[in-house]
C-alpha cells in the first residue's frame, strides 16, 4: 500500500489511506504517575499529525514508547496494519520509526558522519566499518536536505545548534524511515531556522513519510500540520483535520476550558534606573555591552540563538567571569564573583537550560525551591523544614504547579512543570532584578499565560525584569524596551512603541532595512 497510494491520496480526502502507524489502547504508568491511559494515535503517509497537550500530558512519553525506549503497560502498536513489538530503540529503527527527541540527543565528540550513521554504518566485505562510504553517504544525505554546507567530517561540538538539529534530521533520513517523530523541534530554534525546518518537513511529506509533530506553538501547528491529536492528563481527548478545527476549540480540548492568551496590560510606572551595565566585555563571547534597567521595567533581549544573550546574563549574575566593564545596582558598583554574590545583591538569573542548569533532579520539589533561599529559611545555618515547605507552597501554587506532593522528586515532573519549579525557586529569593532566560520555552499555553501574568505582577510590585526570548510575540507583547544582540554585540535598542516584528528580525539577522 505504500508507494502506489501516495500520490493519489494527497489533498482531497485525507483519511482515505490506511494509517502507516497506529497505536491503540496504550497505557503507561510510572511510580505514582499515570502518564498515559488508553490512548490511541494514527499517523498517515505523507501527512503531518500534530500532537498537542499541556505540559505533562504524556506527549514525550508516547514518543518514547513509539521509539522503543519505554515499554507500554498495555496496548498495541501496529505498522502498516501489522502488530509489532518494539522492545528496543534498535527494533524501532528496524520498523522505520525514527525520532528527533525533545532533548537533543547526539554525540558531541563524534563526527557529523558518524552521528548520522552510528548503529547502521556501511560495512566493508570483511564486516568492518567502511569509513569512506560512510562519509560519502553522509554528504549525500545532507545534500538531499539542502544542508550541504555542513561538513561531514566536522566534530558535532563545533556546529551551531540549528545545524545540530539538521544532523538529527539527517540521521532520521539516513535510516530510510517511514515514520518521523519530532518532539518540540522548534523550542531551541530561531525564526530563520524554524523556516528551514519547515521546508524540510514539506520535503519529507512529499516523500510520503508519516510525520508526528509536537509543539506548543499554535502558529507552527497551523502552518505545517494536516491533522491533530489532543492529549489531556494522559488521555486522548480529540483528533481530526486541522483545517476543521479552530484554535480556541483545540485549546478548550487541551485544558478543558477556554484560554485567551492576551498579554497582560500593565500600567507602565517606570521609575529610576536600578541596574546599569556599561562596557561589559568577555574575551571571546561578547564585547562592550551597556544598558540601563529601570524600576518596574521589562527589558526584552532579542536575538538569534547563539547571539550571546545568555552569556551576558550569566556574566551579570556572576556565573561567567568578565574581562572588563562595570555593573551598578542602585548606584553602587557590584562585582559578583559567583551566583551566590549576585543573589545576595538582589539579581537572580532564571537559566535557559532547565535540565542542566535549573532543576536539581534527585531532590524533592520543596528543596529545589528553597535551595537559593536557604539563608532565609534556616536559622543560624540549621534547616527548618516547615519554613521551606511554606515558602515552596506559596510560590508553586501561584504558578499552578501540577504535582502530587511537595516531597516528590522534581525528576518525575513533566518538562513544563519542572520549569515552573525553576521559576518558583528564583521568585522565592525576592530579588530586585530578575533575569528570565527563555522563560516560556517548552511551556504550554495555559502556563505561559500564568508566567506572563506573573511577570506583570512582579513589575507592578516594583521589580525590574530582563527577559531573554527568541519568541517575537512574547518580546513584543511583554517588553517596554527591546535590546537586540547580534554576534556578541548590542545591535540596537528599541522602544516598544510602534516596534514591529520585521525590524527586530532584520536587526537580529544583520540585514539592512
Amino acid at each position: 500500500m505504500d508507494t502506489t497510494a501516495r500520490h493519489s491520496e494527497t489533498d482531497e480526502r485525507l483519511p482515505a489511506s490506511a494509517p502507516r502507524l497506529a497505536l491503540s489502547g496504550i497505557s503507561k504508568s510510572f511510580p505514582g504517575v499515570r502518564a498515559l491511559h488508553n490512548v490511541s494515535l494514527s499517523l498517515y503517509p505523507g501527512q503531518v499529525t500534530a500532537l498537542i497537550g499541556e505540559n505533562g500530558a504524556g506527549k514525550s512519553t508516547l514518543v518514547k514508547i513509539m521509539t522503543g525506549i519505554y515499554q507500554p503497560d498495555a496496548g498495541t502498536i501496529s505498522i502498516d496494519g501489522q502488530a509489532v513489538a518494539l522492545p528496543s530503540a534498535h527494533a524501532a529503527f528496524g520498523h522505520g520509526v525514527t525520532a528527533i527527541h525533545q532533548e537533543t540527543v547526539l554525540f558531541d565528540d563524534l563526527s557529523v558522519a558518524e552521528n548520522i550513521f552510528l548503529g547502521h554504518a556501511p560495512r566493508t566485505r570483511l564486516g568492518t566499518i567502511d569509513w569512506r562510504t560512510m562519509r560519502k553517504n553522509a554528504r549525500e544525505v545532507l545534500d538531499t536536505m539542502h544542508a550541504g554546507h555542513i561538513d561531514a567530517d566536522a566534530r558535532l561540538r563545533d556546529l551551531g545548534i540549528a545545524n545540530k538539529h539538521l544532523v538529527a534530521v539527517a540521521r532520521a533520513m539516513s535510516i530510510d524511515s517511514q515514520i518521523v517523530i519530532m518532539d518540540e523541534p522548534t523550542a531551541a530554534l530561531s525564526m530563520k531556522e524554524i523556516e528551514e525546518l519547515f521546508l524540510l518537513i514539506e520535503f519529507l511529506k512529499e516523500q510520503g513519510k508519516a510525520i508526528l509533530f509536537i509543539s506548543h506553538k499554535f502558529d507552527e501547528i497551523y502552518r505545517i500540520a494536516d491533522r491533530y491529536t489532543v492529549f489531556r492528563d494522559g488521555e486522548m481527548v480529540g483528533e481530526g483535520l486541522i483545517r476543521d478545527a479552530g484554535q480556541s476549540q483545540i485549546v478548550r480540548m487541551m485544558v478543558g476550558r477556554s484560554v485567551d492568551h492576551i498579554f497582560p496590560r500593565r500600567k507602565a510606572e517606570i521609575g529610576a534606573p536600578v541596574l546599569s551595565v556599561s562596557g561589559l566585555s568577555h574575551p571571546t563571547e561578547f564585547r562592550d555591552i551597556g544598558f540601563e534597567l529601570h524600576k518596574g521595567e521589562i527589558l526584552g533581549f532579542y536575538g538569534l540563538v547563539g547571539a550571546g544573550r545568555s552569556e551576558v546574563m550569566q556574566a551579570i549574575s556572576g556565573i561567567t567571569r568578565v574581562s572588563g566593564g562595570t555593573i551598578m545596582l542602585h548606584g553602587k558598583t557590584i562585582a559578583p564573583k559567583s551566583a551566590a554574590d549576585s543573589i545576595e545583591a538582589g539579581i537572580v538569573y532564571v537559566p535557559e537550560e532547565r535540565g542542566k542548569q535549573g532543576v536539581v533532579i534527585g531532590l524533592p520539589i520543596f528543596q529545589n525551591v528553597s535551595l537559593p533561599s536557604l539563608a532565609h529559611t534556616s536559622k543560624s545555618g540549621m534547616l527548618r523544614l516547615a519554613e521551606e515547605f511554606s515558602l515552596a507552597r506559596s510560590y508553586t501554587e501561584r504558578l499552578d504547579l501540577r504535582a502530587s506532593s511537595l516531597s516528590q522528586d522534581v525528576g518525575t515532573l513533566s518538562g513544563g512543570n519542572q520549569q515552573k519549579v525553576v521559576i518558583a525557586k528564583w521568585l522565592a529569593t525576592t530579588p530586585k532584578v530578575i533575569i528570565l532566560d527563555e522563560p516560556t520555552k517548552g511551556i504550554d499555553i495555559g502556563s505561559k499565560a500564568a508566567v506572563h501574568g506573573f511577570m506583570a505582577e512582579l513589575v507592578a510590585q516594583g521589580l525590574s525584569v530582563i527577559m531573554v526570548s527568541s519568541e517575537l510575540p512574547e518580546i513584543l507583547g511583554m517588553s517596554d524596551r527591546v535590546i537586540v544582540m547580534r554576534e556578541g554585540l548590542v545591535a540596537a535598542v528599541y522602544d516598544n512603541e510602534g516596534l514591529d516584528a520585521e525590524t527586530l528580525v532584520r536587526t537580529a539577522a544583520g540585514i539592512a532595512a
Partner: protein
Amino acid sequence: MTDVPAPRHIPDRLDKPLSSAIFSWEALLVVVAIAIFAINSFASPYFLDPYSLSDLTFNFTEKGLIAFAMALLIISGEIDLSVAAIIALASTMMGMAVQAGAGTPGLVLIGVVVGLGCGAFNGLLVTRLGLPSIVVTIGTMSLFRGIAFIILGDQAYKGYPESFAFFGQGYVWWVVSFELVLFLIAAVVYWFLLHRTNFGRRVFAIGNNPVAAQFSGVRVGRIKFILFCLTGLMSGIASVLITSRLGSTRPSIAQGYELEVITMVVLGGVSILGGAGSIVGVVLAALIMGLVTFGLGLLNVPGIVMSIFIGLLLIIVIALPIVWRRMRGGRLA
C-alpha cells in the same frame, strides 16, 4: 471569558507507606547487623564478653572516622583515594616531630594539620584546576606515601611519649575506648552536619546537579574544597589514633585502607554516583564490617577469606533491594 481556576493545593508529603520505611536501606542494615551479631555469639563462646566487644570496636573506629567525611565527599560527587597515604604522611611528620622533641599536644596538632594540608592540596587540584578527583587522588596517593618513603626509607620512628599512647590505646571509662567515644561524637557531628544544616543540603544538591546548584547560588567549589579538607582532617585524626595505637611509624602504615573506607561508605547506602546517602547507614556499615571481621577472626578465619565475605556483603546488600523490587514488580530481568 477566561475563568481562572483556584490554585490546586499541593500537600507537603504523601503519607509514607509503612513498607517504604521497612524496606529502607538503614532497616536492611540493622537486620544484617543483628543477624551477624547473633551468628557471632552463637558461633564463638568468646564473643559476648565486654573485653572482646571492646576490642572489636578498634576494627572499625579509625576507618569509620574517615568514612564519615568520605561519605559527604562521595555524596557531593567526588572521591578521595589518598586517605591512607595521608595517614602515612601525617604519621611520618609526627615521627619527625618526636625526633625534634615535640610533646603530645604538638604531635596531635601536627598530625591534624598535615592531614588538613593534604586534603587542601587535593581540594585545590580538584576545584581550582577542575580535575577529576578519582585520578587526582590516585596521583596524590602515590605522592603522599612516596614522600613518607623518601623521608623514612627503611627506618621507623618510635619513641612516642607515654601520654601520646592514650589516643589509640586509652579507655575513657571501663571498656569504652577513647577511639570509640571519638567515633560516636564524630557520628553525631557528621549526622547533624549532613542532615540538619544548610551545608549538608547543599552537599546533596551538588551531588545531584552541580551546575544547577552553582546557578542556585551554591558555592560549589568552596564546598567541595571544604569537603576535601574535612576528609584530610579526618585522615589526620585517624593518623594520630593509628600512630598512637602502633606506637611507631613506618611509611607502609595503613596500606589499603582507602578501599576499606570506600567499601564502608558504599555499604552504608551512599550512592557512589553522588547525591544520596545517610550517616546512620555509614555507622551501621562500619559496625557490620567490624562485626564480620572480628567474628570471623574469632574463628581464626584468615583475613583474605573475611574479605570475600565483605565483598559478597557489599554486592548482595546492594543487589538485594533491586532484585526484590523486580520480583515484586513481577518481572525478573
